[in-house]
């Protein structure tokens, strides 16, 4: 068994095999689209392609309704129109395999042996979920690669800080949620307080001042200016090209999104029932506060282990968000392999948690199917299943947090 695992995870074999399997899925998807009524390709892929077509005709990609992404994505996919419609899918699976490679590199930098690192990376590379998502034409893998690239460069921030800032700025431009990493990154890059033996002698005021002054160091200012520069340049460029609609569809829509249609979020039914009432805004704020508070707490507690902190950030963001669809899960699943080597859970416990997670989704999908495709009024069941799913997610996160053992990497040991 061990020989089989080591053979399967041999470097060249692993990456080649994972790419070939994804390619085969893309080919199969093309076949299914042409021959069967139920299509393999996701509707989002058609949205991207239509938007790219508008760009090739010199128009705004936002002429395609429900296109709610950066114009950069439509620009990237213009070869869909000029060359072949499968180009986008190839790009996504390449980014997917690249994400696997970045996971491997980060794990090596965090002190794992190469074979163990490859074994853990195979949890992403040979995982049917990201395979399916990328081959169906969802663009999540581009963002996964950007976030993992940022984390990799941050692990080697002595040499690669500018690159980290560049990739971070680009990832925030593509999707808003990485903006939550700004606080842990800032906490990592600032000059930490100098520990004094007799802490009592230093006044509280001085400590507070020292804390804030620590944020104004060279590294953090460089990071902020490069990341901010990339983000604002791209925003200004696309605002100049496409106007207010770009700002609204790419950012404001997601920030103010109140999808009253059924989704995994525990807030869905509450927001649906109060959509027209005067309480709507106050309840929206009430839903935002726990999310915000938890993100602050997570940043402060875990910034020293940036990969784990980012994983918790995204998992909490998605679990406590007002809208949650299965696409969002990939945002933190791509960071899970970075966390797994440090977990003291047994394989049995890990698989148990995974099954629990899937069971939570299945319990939601049941009444949701009956609502949408059979016409039964299962709103109350969907609401309860949403609450249950949130409890399951929190339970899993608590298990991860209580069984996490941070490692001391060579880089950190040098600094200390």
């Amino acid at each position: 068994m061990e020989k089989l695992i080591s053979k399967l995870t041999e470097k060249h074999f692993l990456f080649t095999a994972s790419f070939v399997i994804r390619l085969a899925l893309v080919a199969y998807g093309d076949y299914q689209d042409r021959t069967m009524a139920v299509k393999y390709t996701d509707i989002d892929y058609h949205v991207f392609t239509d938007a790219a077509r508008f760009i090739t005709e010199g128009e705004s990609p936002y002429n395609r309704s429900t296109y709610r992404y950066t114009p950069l994505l439509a620009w990237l996919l213009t070869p869909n129109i000029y060359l072949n419609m499968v180009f986008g899918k190839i790009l996504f699976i390449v980014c997917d395999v690249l994400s696997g490679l970045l996971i491997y590199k980060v794990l090596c930098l965090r002190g794992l042996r190469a074979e163990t690192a490859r074994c853990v990376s195979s949890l992403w590379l040979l995982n049917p979920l990201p395979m399916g998502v990328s081959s169906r034409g969802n663009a999540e893998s581009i963002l996964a690669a950007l976030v993992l690239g940022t984390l990799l460069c941050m692990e080697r921030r002595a040499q690669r800080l500018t690159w980290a800032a560049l990739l971070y700025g680009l990832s925030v431009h593509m999707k808003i949620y990485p903006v939550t990493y700004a606080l842990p990154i800032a906490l990592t890059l600032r000059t930490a307080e100098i520990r004094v033996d007799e802490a009592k002698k230093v006044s509280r005021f001085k400590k507070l001042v020292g804390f804030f002054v620590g944020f104004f160091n060279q590294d953090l200012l460089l990071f902020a200016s490069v990341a901010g520069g990339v983000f604002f340049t791209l925003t200004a460029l696309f605002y100049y090209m496409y106007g207010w609609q770009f700002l609204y569809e790419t950012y404001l829509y997601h920030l103010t999104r109140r999808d009253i249609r059924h989704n995994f979020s525990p807030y869905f039914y509450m927001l649906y029932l109060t959509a027209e009432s005067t309480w709507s805004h106050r309840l929206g704020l009430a839903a935002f506060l726990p999310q915000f508070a938890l993100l602050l707490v997570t940043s402060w507690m875990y910034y020293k282990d940036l990969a784990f902190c980012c994983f918790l950030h995204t998992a909490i963001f998605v679990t406590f968000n007002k809208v949650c669809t299965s696409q969002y899960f990939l945002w933190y699943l791509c960071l899970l392999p970075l966390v797994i080597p440090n977990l003291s859970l047994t394989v049995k416990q890990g698989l148990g948690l995974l099954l629990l997670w899937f069971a939570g989704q299945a319990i939601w999908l049941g009444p949701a199917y009956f609502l949408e495709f059979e016409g039964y009024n299962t709103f109350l069941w969907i609401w309860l299943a949403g609450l249950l799913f949130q409890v399951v997610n929190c339970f899993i996160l608590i298990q991860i947090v209580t069984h996490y053992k941070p490692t001391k990497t060579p880089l950190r040991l040098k600094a200390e």
Partner: protein
Amino acid sequence: HSLKNKCTLFKFKKLLPDQCNLLICADEIQNHCDLLRQWLAPSSVRVELNKKGFHREVTTTVEFRSKELSSVKVLLIHRWPRDVYVDPYQLASLSDQNNWKILLDSAIDLEVPAHKASGFVTYVYPFSTGPTSKLFKVTIPIHGRYHKPSFDGKMLKSVDIEVPELLLRSEKCAQLSSLEPHTVVDAPCTASNSSTCSWVKVKPQQDLNPVSFQLPVGDGSLVAHVCGGTLLVTMICCVALSKYMWKHQVI
């Protein structure tokens, strides 16, 4: 037969419809208008609803009495309520499999709830499947919108789909006034909407009731329980998670 006396010829054709083709008519237009008149003879329009839930299919079947098809164009006008919508992108992807073309009268917002949406009109141009077929079948996929929650305990909301209007025109018959008492209506000539033509509206055989189906709606009377329950569970999860993170923080 005197070819100059068109009126006489016309009366002859009315009495002997099957021998129409045997008569040599100088006035081609009159011939085509007669053809059109035959088509206006009572024909049946049937509407069926298929599938369940929020995604349905509305199948309109039109059956004509007359057999001669070639130059007559058919148009079905559906007037949809605000409770449903069609997905123009879905229709575009189905267009190569269908034997009909569709035109929408306005842009459709796919996500807005029913009380913020408005009704719309579709123009469907079916083309015949064969030279002797007198049956047209058009299946349009529609999707239900979310409705405002109900406060009177009703779990379902009724949606009515009216029977479409059936319109005809012949390219070679311009004298539509001769086809009175049928009403003449202006509508786009084809699905490409490049021009407007005059169409003749076919009177339905009998007054047909609209087809209806039901969509689930949220229960507004539970709003306090739902809000309270949601915020309670979320708060408990938030506090629990914070507590464990505090206990196991990475120093």
